[in-house]
């Protein structure tokens, strides 16, 4: 197949992901990396590099608006960023070391990626979202209280300003460290983990959790340096992917207003399950644990 087919394929593929993301609430990176690993000839290193850049660019594009609306909480970001910057870089280093230094390393990465994706699948089908979690004054931990991590935004559906508080900050900080490592290692955006953690564990309203998650994803940006410094960023992969997801997300935001989100969400969750299983099978095939079946 001629070389030009693959950038065109990536553009169309990421355009579709971009359209689906705002409709389903599933981040682009988490679909892109496992599917592109299975569907394209690019080595998993190049796919992870592009996946991470896609996740960061999507976040950079939406965060300024969310900050101005009061939805993304910069105080929470300031506490979490010093942890996530370090762990996402460590994750990137470990991911590239595994695929380059170990014999059959890329198959170990595919196997681990499949397992992580199935974990994401489980989180998505089991976690319940709480629109406005109740955080009583006595629930607020001393760190959040001392730092004054509170916020407010205007909620059109209620036609009033909603104020909120945060709880369990120390536990959240540890969990964000782990999430940063996984995000850096596999080139995934971490919205799938950030949102339930902020919403269910730390008591942020769902809109604040989603917006602050986007802000936190920008702290994964230094992990791009790992991929750049190892030559794992190629314009032929990155440019069509970024253009596709950027244009697709704009189309998707308009479609989201007219389509039934629940149906698309379940469709995406099904695709995610399939991608996880395919990566595990490819990893096990490459390592010789099972015969060649796909």
């Amino acid at each position: 197949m001629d070389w030009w087919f693959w950038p065109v394929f990536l553009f169309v593929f990421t355009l579709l992901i971009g359209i689906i993301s705002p409709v389903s609430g599933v981040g682009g990176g988490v679909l892109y990396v496992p599917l592109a690993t299975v569907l394209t000839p690019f080595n998993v290193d190049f796919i992870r590099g592009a996946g991470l850049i896609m996740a960061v660019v999507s976040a950079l594009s939406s965060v300024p608006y969310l900050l101005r609306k009061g939805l993304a909480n910069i105080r929470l970001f300031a506490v979490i960023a010093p942890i996530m910057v370090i762990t996402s870089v460590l994750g990137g280093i470990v991911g590239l070391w595994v695929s380059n230094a170990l014999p059959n390393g890329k198959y170990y990465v595919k196997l681990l990626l499949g397992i992580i994706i199935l974990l994401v699948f489980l989180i998505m089908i089991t976690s319940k979202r709480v629109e406005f979690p109740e955080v009583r004054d006595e629930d607020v931990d001393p760190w959040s209280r001392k730092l004054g991590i509170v916020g407010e935004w205007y909620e059109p559906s209620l036609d009033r300003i909603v104020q909120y508080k945060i709880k369990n900050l120390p536990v959240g900080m540890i969990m964000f460290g782990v999430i940063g490592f996984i995000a850096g290692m596999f080139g995934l955006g971490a919205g799938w983990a950030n949102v339930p953690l902020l919403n269910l564990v730390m008591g942020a309203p769902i809109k604040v959790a989603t917006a602050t998650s986007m802000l936190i994803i920008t702290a994964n940006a230094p992990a791009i340096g790992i991929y750049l410094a190892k030559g794992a960023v190629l314009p032929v992969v990155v440019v069509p992917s970024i253009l596709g997801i950027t244009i697709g997300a704009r189309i998707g935001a308009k479609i989201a207003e007219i389509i039934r989100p629940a149906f698309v969400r379940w469709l995406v969750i099904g695709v995610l399950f399939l991608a996880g299983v395919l990566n595990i099978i490819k990893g096990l095939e490459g390592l010789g644990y099972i015969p060649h079946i796909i």
Partner: protein
Amino acid sequence: MEERKISVDPMALAFAKVMTVFTIIGIAVMVAPSIPYFMGYNQYISLQMASKYWNESTVNFWKHVKGITVHGYDWIFTNLEYTDCQSMIGVLLLMITPLLSMIAAIPKADQKAFKLLLLLAAIEFAVSMIVKGIL
């Protein structure tokens, strides 16, 4: 009317302003040189050559395509006459955009703790990028 009464953190406003500007610049700098690159002009890595080895690990890819081992950002900065390396400058700009946004937010912080936390995150961010460039 009520929307106007929301008090937005001054740190957030400074952060948002810088992020908006540098994201636009970063995407433009990444995409513009890629157009001549895809048309075959002035390529550091020819697309025909790349397509033969892009299924290999990064180490093997560079060994086959350029006969080198890539460490750090030198491969970008020493080949800026080529369109694909120019495109990578856009990626670098996008990478440092959160760092610039954090730096812009520091003077607007109302508590010393937030000044220190943002400064710490910015230093970690910068150090990790520099270390990667040296290794």
